[in-house]
Each structure stands twice: as C-alpha cells, then as structure tokens.
C-alpha cells in the first residue's frame, strides 16, 4: 500500500503531513482508525491518493475525507442497490476499484481525490475485526508502507482485556536496531499500551536520501489469563460475550486420513512441498493417534487399507510411502474422499479405533474435480451422506486454480473448514501450520447454554470441536439489563467429559478501568453484530435454499444497521468533483478471487452427416 502518494511527477508539491494508526482492542474486538493528512502546496490542483491495507477478516465500518472543511463520508448500502445506482463505477459481477486483494492476509483500500492548490485533505478509514485465537495467541497486524518519510508518523494500540493479559509482544518486520527502542510498551494487568512514533529523520534510510525504512507489518501478539475453566463472560450495555478456552484439558486422540491430490497439476514444487509438509506432519503425530494416507488422481490408492497407530515404525514406513508420491492424471475428489470416509467407518465398526477419539479427513487438492464424478453438488451430497455428521473434513486448497467455494462448502457441511494454501516457498510451512491448528482436539460437541428467559439473538452456541490454542466465542443480547447472576453451563465430550456450571455477574467497568470505563461503550454490541454477521454469511452458503435466503437477508440487514462493509454491502464514497462517478468499496471473497480465473466456451450446432477428414502417411 502506498500512503498518500502523489501521482503527478512534480515531487514536492504535495506534503504528507501525518499518518496515524490508532488501534483499540476491547476483549478481542479491535477497531482500527487510520488517519492521514496531506497538503497540496503546488500552484495547481493535484490528485492525491490514499492507499492502506487492512486484514481480510476485518469489516470496513467508516471512511471519510475532509477537504476545505467539507467532510465527505462513505455510506454503506446494499450491494445490489449500489450497483444499480452507480453502474459506471461497478460493472456487474466485479468488485469495484477501492478494495483489492493484497497478499494472503490483507486487502488494499485505495482512494484518490483532486485537491486544489494550497488545500488540505484528511482521510480517515475505520475497520473492525474480532481477533481469533490461533495457536494460543491473538494477533494484530498493522501494515504500513508510506512512500516517503512523514512528518508525524504514529502507531498506537491500546488493548483492554478484563481477563488480564498473560503476555504481549510487539515487533515489526522493518524494525532496525535504531528503531527498536522506539517501540514503547506499557503493560498492566488488564491493559496494554503500545506505541511507535519515529521522527521524520528516523524514518529515513539515510540522511537526506529519499524513501523510508517504514515498510512492512507492525505485529502485536498477546494472550489472556484463563483462570476459570468455564471461561469468562463480559456484560456491557445490554449485550454479553462469553469467551471459552479452558486450559489443562487432555487432548483427544485423533484418527486422521490424509487425502493427497497427486494429479498432474501438482507436479513440481507443489508436490515437493506436499511431500515435505507430510513428512513433518507425520513426525508430529502423537503416539496415540491413528492415521491413514490416500493419494489420488483419476484413480485412488491408499497406503494401507485401514488406519495405523502412529508408532515409530508405522510413521517411518508412511514417510517412505509419502516420499514416493508422484504426480500424474486428473482429479477424482469424489472417489478419494469417499474412500477416506469408508476407511474411518470400517475401522470404527471393527473397533480398531479408540472409542474416545476424533475422526477427521484432511483433503489437500489444487484443482477442480476433473475425473469420475465431476458435478460439484453431487460430490458434496455424496460426501455429506457418507460422513453423516460423524467426522470432520478439512479442505486445503493449494494454489490459485482450486475451486475454493466448493471446498469451503463441503468442509463447512462436514464440521470442518477450508483453507487456501498459497503457492510460495513457505507452502510446506502453511500446511504444517494448518495441521498444528487442528492437530490437538480437546473437546467434541461443545454446548454452551444460557438461560432462555434472559438472552436472545444468541450467536452459535454449539461447536463440533474445540482445538488446543483456539477459543470459542458466544455473544447475545440480554433481555434483562440489570441481571445480577448470569448462569452458564458448558458441556463437551473430551478425554474426560467436560461439564461445568457457574454464574457470572456484570462487571463494574468504572471499577475495573477507572480512567477508561467509557471505552467499552458499544464494543460488546458490535462484537456481537460482527460475529452474528460472520455466522450468517457462513450459513448463507450451506443448507436448504430458504435457510440460505433467510441467513442472507438477516446478514444484509445487520450489515446495513451496523454499517459494516461485508460481501453483501458496498460503501459508496462521493467525491467532491461533481461530474465524477462515486467510488465503491466492496468486501472481497475468496470466490471472487477465483472467479476471474474461470472461462467458458461456446459451441455451434450444425447437423450434418459426419464424413471423415484425415491426414496420414504411408
């Protein structure tokens, strides 16, 4: 992203005065405000652009431009209406210009505007996201790439976690030894303040030379205390949120079948990286786990006909097998996944697997189904019927050609999730990273229960599994705002079955944060809204047609109500230039990234008797 770069050649006439990032986190819910001010010191009008990057998981919630004391504010509208209304700006089926994909984790927001001579412009972008706990920590990524040193450059983050912060770390990819001391970190039990504010001279690569060393990610990682097994409930302004991630639970053994696509398109680096990742993953299997390996192209082969215990000997043999996987052929996903399901079902029936254990399939593929059953809905139905809710399916889509939408739906329908593995030198690490996330199941069928008469509009409160290092979050609206004792029950199946009942009370924020009690304001409500919209968007992809339509309609309503730019809404930004079309900011989806890669064909029907035309030699 380029911050306030000039598009015109006469450098020096536009001065970027300030760039500040203010990130406030209240109980995992982060609101980030990026503000930048520039002045056109030239004699003529200049186009100034504002380009920043935000995490893919974030929703833009506000954008404004202030020019000559006039403020232009972006308005969130239903995407379809925005399209109809501003046809010039948004061509059908395509995302508009303001938001573009940028790398794996981020998307780019950019806007440009003409500024009169000696005028000032201030851009303010706000986005919000619920931080997800992964491998035992939350991560805030702030990407900064100013093109030139900025007079006032500042990153500030204030984190408020009522459970208490167990550790926090801040670093940046661009930090040098000179800049390192500029990262200021103040941590008390429940609050952390992190700031980074280099002077214009400190931003320079060298004295008097152009360019800046500030170019990369500023990353904050932290975790919170987990004193109660039942988790923590926070109540604010009529909404509650429950964070559940008990510690010290014994992990469940897992029975995992790796289903590896070896079709022709995996040739070369992808296949090599898959082999490398599988070797590492096999090394990391717990001794009480069972595992199987299936490789497929247009035919399906399995290492062994049933799962094997992860003994040293078996792992060693599996590694030798994995090393020999060679690419060839088309992609018969249907047959391969059904084979994996069959292996697990057969072994369960034969009691070869521990009773208390989790069954999962990890499918790694890089392409569309191109062999055997190729109709995506039929494959999804076949897999859904075969699995019957008894195991989890994780779909790892390798590269850009994969039908991510297909994998996403199929995984969600079977208690799992899909993840894209990006082609690159670190693809093997990405595979291992994903495996690490799901390698340690703690609980299955987790139920979080709240009094029916006290809560409404509850987010999902049943979860198929809880993995070590992750966290379950449930939020809802309270019907009684003055609730004194809030009873909570949590049940789950684990190595030792989990059953906890407890009561929570509303915290007096003015006591916990005497100087900052105001900061919680609408955060809990917006966290609830964010989570509800996310889950509705997921529901809108699976299930019956009327359920999908209902979920979509509700998600749209809430996106509009809370002013979130989601895949169903667009933000319309009206520029001061009267003749110009307004600009539209959309939310990107993985499917949209894939869409452009698809192509279709046409054919012409011309009946005739088919003679033979040939060329040969003799």
């Amino acid at each position, binding site marked *: 992203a380029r911050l306030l770069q000039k598009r015109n050649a006469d450098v020096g006439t536009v001065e970027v005065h300030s760039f500040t990032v203010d990130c406030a986190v209240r109980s995992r819910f982060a609101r980030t405000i990026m503000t930048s001010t520039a002045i056109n010191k030239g004699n003529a009008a200049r186009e100034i652009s504002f380009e920043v990057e935000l995490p893919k998981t974030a929703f833009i919630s506000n954008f404004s431009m202030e020019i000559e004391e006039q403020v232009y504010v972006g308005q969130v509208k239903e995407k379809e209406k925005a399209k109809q209304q501003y046809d010039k700006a948004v061509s059908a089926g395509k995302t508009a210009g303001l938001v573009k994909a940028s790398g794996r984790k981020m998307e780019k927001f950019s806007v440009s505007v003409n500024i009169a001579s000696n005028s000032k412009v201030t851009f303010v972008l706000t986005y919000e996201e619920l931080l997800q706990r992964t491998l035992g920590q939350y991560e805030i990524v702030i990407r900064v790439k100013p093109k030139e040193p900025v007079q006032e450059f500042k990153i500030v983050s204030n984190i408020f976690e009522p459970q208490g912060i167990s550790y926090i770390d801040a670093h940046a990819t661009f930090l040098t030894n000179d800049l390192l001391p500029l990262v200021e970190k103040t941590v008390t039990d429940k609050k952390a303040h992190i700031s980074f504010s280099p002077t214009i001279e400190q931003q320079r690569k060298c004295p008097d030379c152009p360019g800046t060393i500030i170019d990369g990610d500023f990353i904050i990682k932290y975790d919170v205390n987990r004193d109660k097994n039942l988790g923590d409930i926070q109540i604010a302004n009529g909404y509650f949120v429950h964070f559940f991630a008990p510690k010290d639970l014994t992990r469940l053994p897992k029975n995992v079948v790796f289903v590896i696509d070896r079709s022709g398109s995996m040739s070369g680096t992808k296949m090599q990286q898959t082999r490398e990742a599988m070797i590492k993953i096999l090394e990391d299997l717990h001794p009480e786990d069972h595992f199987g390996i299936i490789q497929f192209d247009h035919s399906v082969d399995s290492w062994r006909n049933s799962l094997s215990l992860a003994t040293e000997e078996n792992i060693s043999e599996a590694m030798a097998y994995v090393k020999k996987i060679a690419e060839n052929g088309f992609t018969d996903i249907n047959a391969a996944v059904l084979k994996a399901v069959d292996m697990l079902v057969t072994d369960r029936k034969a009691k070869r697997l521990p009773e208390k254990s989790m069954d999962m399939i990890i499918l790694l593929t890089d392409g569309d189904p191109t062999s055997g059953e190729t109709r995506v809905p039929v494959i999804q139905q076949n897999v859904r019927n075969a699995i019957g809710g008894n195991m989890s399916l994780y779909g790892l889509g390798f590269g850009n050609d994969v039908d991510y939408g297909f994998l996403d739906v199929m995984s969600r329908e079977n208690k799992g999730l899909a993840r894209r593995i990006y082609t690159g030198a670190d693809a093997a690490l990405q595979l291992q990273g994903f495996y690490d996330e799901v390698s340690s199941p703690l609980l299955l069928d987790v139920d979080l229960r709240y009094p029916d008469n006290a809560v409404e509009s509850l987010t999902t409160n049943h979860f198929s599994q809880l993995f070590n290092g992750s966290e379950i979050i449930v939020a809802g609206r309270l019907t009684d705002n003055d609730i004194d004792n809030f009873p909570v029950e949590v049940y789950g199946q684990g190595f030792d079955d989990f059953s906890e009942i407890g009561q929570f009370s509303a915290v007096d924020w003015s006591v916990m944060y005497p100087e900052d009690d105001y900061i919680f304001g609408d955060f809990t409500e917006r966290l609830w809204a964010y989570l509800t919209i996310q889950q509705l968007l997921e529901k809108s992809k699976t299930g019956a047609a009327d359920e999908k339509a209902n979920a979509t309609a509700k998600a749209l309503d809430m996106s509009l109500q809370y002013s979130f730019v989601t895949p169903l809404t667009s933000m319309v930004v009206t520029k001061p230039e009267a003749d110009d079309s307004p600009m539209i900011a959309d939310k990107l989806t993985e499917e949209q990234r894939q869409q452009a890669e698809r*192509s279709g064909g046409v054919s012409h029907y011309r009946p005739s008797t088919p003679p033979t035309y040939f060329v040969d030699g003799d």
Partner: protein
Amino acid sequence: PHFMIELPDKNDALCFNINDKPGTIFNLVRDPVSGILVNGQIIGDKKIPPDGVINTYFYRFGITRWTLGVRLEVNTEFITVYQGGERIKLLWSAPSSLKGPNVDMVLTKDRSLMVTLKDSVKFVILLHKVWEKHPYHRDYLGFYTLDSHLLSPSAHGLLGQFYHGIEYEVSDLHPGEVPGKPDATMFVKGQQLNVTRGWQRDFRNDVKNGENVPCWFIHNNGTGIIDGDASDYIVSGLF
C-alpha cells in the same frame, strides 16, 4: 502426409499430399467460435532414401480448446493433456481411458487415441509404429476427424476448411501417366484442375496395412483445392 476428404454424400473422396521441410508445423483446424486449434509438425525419414524422395509425416500434434483451457500434445512417444491447470502424461505403451468435464480420451495401447472434446469435435490419432531399426522410416501419426458437425462455419485449416463440404465436378476422364490411374479435369472453386484417380489408405481398421479408399488426387500440395496454398497454413508453434 496425405490428406483425405471423404464425401459420403457423393460416394467419393478427394486427396492430396502436403510436404515441406521436416520440422514445419501446419495448421489443420482452427475454429475461432468453439476455440479449437489443431496444429501438426512433420518429420522426415532418418536419411535420404535411395530413390532420393524424402517422405514427411506428422509426428506431433498440438490440440487446444482455449475457451475451456484444454490442451493436448500428442507425439509418437507420449500424450500430454493439460486441463484446468492440471497436466497428465500418458504413454502409448499403457492402455488407459480418462473422462473429464471437457475432454474424454481412450487410449488403445500402441495404436490409437480417441479424443472427444465436449460439444465440439471427436477425432482419433493413430500411432504407426515402425521397426526401430528401419534404416529410413520412423514412427509417425495419423489424424482422423470423426465428428466435426458441432464446429462453427468459421472452422478453417488444411482439414477444417472441408468440414463444411465442397462442391466440385469431374469430367474429361483420360489416361494418365501411370497405368490404372486415369487423369481428369476437376472444376472446383472457379478453377480447372488436372486430377488423378488414385487411392489412399485409411488405417483406422487396419493400422498396419490400411484400406484403400479411391479418391481424386490433387497435385502440387493440393493447389486449387485448398484455400490459398500450403505455405499459408504454416504456423510458428504447436499451440
């Protein structure tokens, strides 16, 4: 290589040879509407035969349906198929069949490859295996269009231009240079050509001996029967 245009409605056939330097690539079919492209590269004998005539044959075909991202390369050793970003390599020595959303293939070991490109064209490629130690000849391929009725009227190429049929008349049959192969005058495309009644072989049913198919042979690289001349169909690459 010899080209054969069967015209069942007329109960007749046309044939011609196209030769050029070994390595030349010719366009056989190009249909911009369905996105079909078939190119073939010729190869010569191992060395100049005693009669001094270097025969050329097709030994490599490149087949693309670019609208669906399908691409096949067929040579005398193996077949490579690219589809949806995937690549598959098949050896002539291993029988196999593949069924995909856009292309179906049936490979008969060391003999033929039947290819159906969805909603467009069906063809078979024959492999002619020659004794490895033959002093002059080497393996070569034949390309037979079995069904082209779904291709558009815009289809062209050395074979493709005949997919829409061709109108001609033959008269003035008279003895030619070779006994049993009379010459005649053919009126086609506004021209008058001297043609010879002969035969060419269709190897589909008998890959070793072939079956003789009587046809009107057009001399000089098919000049007069094809649009333009043979050099107009030379392309720079297989795809």
